[in-house]
């Protein structure tokens, strides 16, 4: 028996990780060099959440899917031209700043206020989705805070799978150490699920889906409400990127075992 779900995916936009990302410290704190110049993409973790949400909604007729995204309107619009081709959803844009390390509490407040007044949303049917490592460059708290502000106490992080049961309860696989999953059973909605990668491949670009989404996305963007993210007096002690090391070599006729041994040695060095 299908469950009717109201799924809200919180997904920010981030600088395309394929570009050269360079940390800098500006007057507003740490950020990325030329961040406004870089093309943006939907946060990859949250994108997984969106694809899982769309699959869930399609398996449960009558369900609804909203994508709540906070960012500069122009950037959101550009990102939507790609995302909108993937899966059907209704966009709820919030015109706000991008860049740096915004305060998770302020961001969560804006998101929760927006979700709380979504027309047609039944909170008893709500599954709040987002990326596990998405917010404020990996602080992993915004989604939890949004859930708390909405009064949702069943929260799961690092989710790779959700299986709905006929009685409305569902089983969740959460990532734990050692490459294993913790299996939980939740009595039912509402719940918060911060997704890891899930199990679905990125959907193909489908122009028909894109056209259908655009009928609602363009008007929504036109009347996107503006939001200000308060810094709340935060100060930043230090920020650093993981060190990259590239050592390219062309080799031929090495066995897989030899390559693996070399990699192990290199990682261990």
């Amino acid at each position, binding site marked *: 028996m299908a469950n009717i779900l109201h799924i809200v995916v919180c997904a920010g936009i981030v600088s*395309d990780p*394929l*570009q*050269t990302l360079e940390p800098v410290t500006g007057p507003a704190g740490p950020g990325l060099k*030329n961040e*406004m*110049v*870089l*093309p943006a993409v939907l946060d990859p973790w949250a994108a997984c959440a969106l694809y899982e949400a769309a699959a869930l909604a399609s398996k449960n007729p009558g369900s609804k899917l909203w994508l709540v995204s906070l960012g500069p*309107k*122009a*950037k959101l*619009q*550009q990102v939507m*031209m*790609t995302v909108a*081709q993937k899966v059907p959803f209704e966009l709820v844009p919030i015109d706000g700043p991008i860049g740096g390390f915004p305060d998770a509490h302020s961001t969560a407040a804006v998101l929760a206020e927006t979700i709380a007044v979504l027309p047609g949303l039944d909170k008893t049917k709500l599954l709040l989705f987002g990326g596990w490592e998405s917010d404020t460059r990996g602080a992993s708290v915004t989604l939890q805070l949004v859930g708390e502000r909405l009064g949702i106490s069943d929260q799961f992080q690092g989710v790779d799978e959700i299986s709905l049961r006929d009685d409305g309860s569902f089983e969740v696989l959460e990532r734990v150490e050692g490459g294993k999953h913790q299996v939980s059973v939740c009595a039912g909605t509402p719940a918060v699920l911060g997704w890891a990668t899930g199990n679905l491949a990125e959907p*193909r*670009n*489908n*122009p*028909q889906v*894109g*056209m259908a989404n*655009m009928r609602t996305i*363009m008007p929504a963007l*036109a009347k996107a409400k503006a939001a200000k993210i308060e810094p709340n007096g935060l100060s930043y002690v230090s920020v650093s990127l993981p060190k990259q090391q*590239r050592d*390219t070599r*062309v*080799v*031929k006729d090495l066995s897989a075992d030899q390559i693996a041994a070399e990699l192990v040695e290199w990682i261990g060095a």
Partner: protein
Amino acid sequence: MSAEDKAAETIEIDRPSMEVDIACAGFGPATGGFLTTLTKAWNENPADPAFESRVTQGMPLQVLCYERADDISSGVSGVVTRGQAIRASFPALNPDDIPMAVPVSSERVMYLLDPIGASRRSALLRLGDFFLRIGGKLVGVRDYAFTLPWTPAFLNKHGGLVLGIGQFNQWVGSQLMASGLVQIWPGTPVNAPLFSGNKVEGVRLSDQGVDKSGAPTDGFMAGMDVRAQLTVVGDGPVGAVGQAIDSKLGLPPGHSHREWALGMKFVIELPEDSPLKPGTVWHSFGFPEPEIFGFLYVHPERLVSVGIFIPSWMHNPSRTAYRYLQHYIQHPALWKVLKDGTLRSWGAKSLEESGRHGEPYLCGDGYARIGEGSGSTNMLTGSGVDEAWATGTQLGEAVIELLRAGLPFTQENLAKTYEKRRRASWVERGAHEAENARNGFQGGIVKGMIGMALAGLTGGRLSLKAHIPPPHKQIRPFASQSAEGLKLKDAAALAIADGRSFHDAMLSARGWPEIPLDGRLLVTQQDALLLGGKVQAMPGFADHVAFRNPQLCIACGEKTCVAMCSGQALTQGDDGAPAFEREKCVHCGACLWNCGQSPDGEHSNIDFRAGAGGLHSAEN
């Protein structure tokens, strides 16, 4: 398989389809100009009945643009342009609003001597070099470079703009989409035009969920047929739609696509104490080979675009680009300002240099051609972006005129409006002046420079005559026992033996010194592929490079396509035919014209089709 069969070649099934008013193939400066003109007119009066959709009642015009690249900011080019058409569209344009844009502040032209001694110079050129070296500083030679005392007027971009095309496209695109009239869909390659007889009725998008050959696999999704009242073809010189129209309808008598160049460039971050000011523009010639022109454009934020052009008239089949570019930036005149820089990104693109000689039919029933693929690039002034933008605006004005008059997009109506505007414009005048300016290059660099100067200084009234053969005949095959032929064989053996790239081994075999890789500015080509923007290849699409007759490839001795491949996506295959890796292709299109074989005497043996992805850099 010929390009005209592409629509028929795709799987015949019941495809999804939709109707729109205007479908555009490709988003670059030309389409940007077209859509900007359209949206400006609509914004001035959204209630204008001319802008009511003919296919969706009660809605404004349905205008869709499909772009192959994953993002509209992935355009590959650092350019200097006079920008007159761009400024006409944006009278209040402030370059500060566009990342990487800056007004031209100074300009110079340099002749570069060869400090290494590996470049292939004629006796005449060597004699000239000798006198310059003897004259030294007295005649103005510094750092092995002779700076011309003035920049010829036809080259001068004074008052113009230095742009990063990716950033410019992004800036234009965001304004267009904010208007609400236009949708630009990236990551969506157009496979072919939809023909009904000779009329173009829209475009077919590429199939997804197919194998390398295009056969359906799991998750097959048929490309949609987008039926349009007007199809705007702005997909560039190697675009699938333009190629298919040329193939089916032919080119005007005497026209052909025979002159090409590959532009390859680095984007380098200069050191903090760099003396180069934003807006500085350098043009160069003479090094690393006499036929190779070079450029350096300084953007704001200490970024510089520096690159070279390898022309089809460089008859030697050992033409290559990446290694040459590394030698170019190490020339003393450039190295002194670049040596402490950091490579941020890299890119390459084919340029259609035939100009008016390569102009296709500009319009037909249901379609119009704009931009570089319509022969708008002016090869005398070395300018293409502004001309492309201008052709787009001319079509935009024409379309508005036809919409307001309630007239259909027939060949006759488009000729009376779009073509008429273009013929009366500065683009056309420039095209005439440039028409034969480069003829002399078929006879070498000295003759070419004389011909260019003649045309440039007389407004095209005087020029040299030349027969320009098809691109495959411009590649002069080596005699197998010639010195060059033997070096080529050595290079091929070296490439196979130690896994080096063919072009790298080839230049080493020809006496060029090894590149002192430093991991910062001088990096291997494979590392460059991973810098700045990386190469994208969405899974599920067919290979877009195919070999029409593999037997011709196996018999080919030169393998120029492999040597010239910008991304090393073409390598020597085990069976003698090149092997293609879509995941490395930057869609520069160089293989299309760097092929020494032809199954029909005019076109190359390489079929360059529609494909998704390519270089994915925001700084290009």
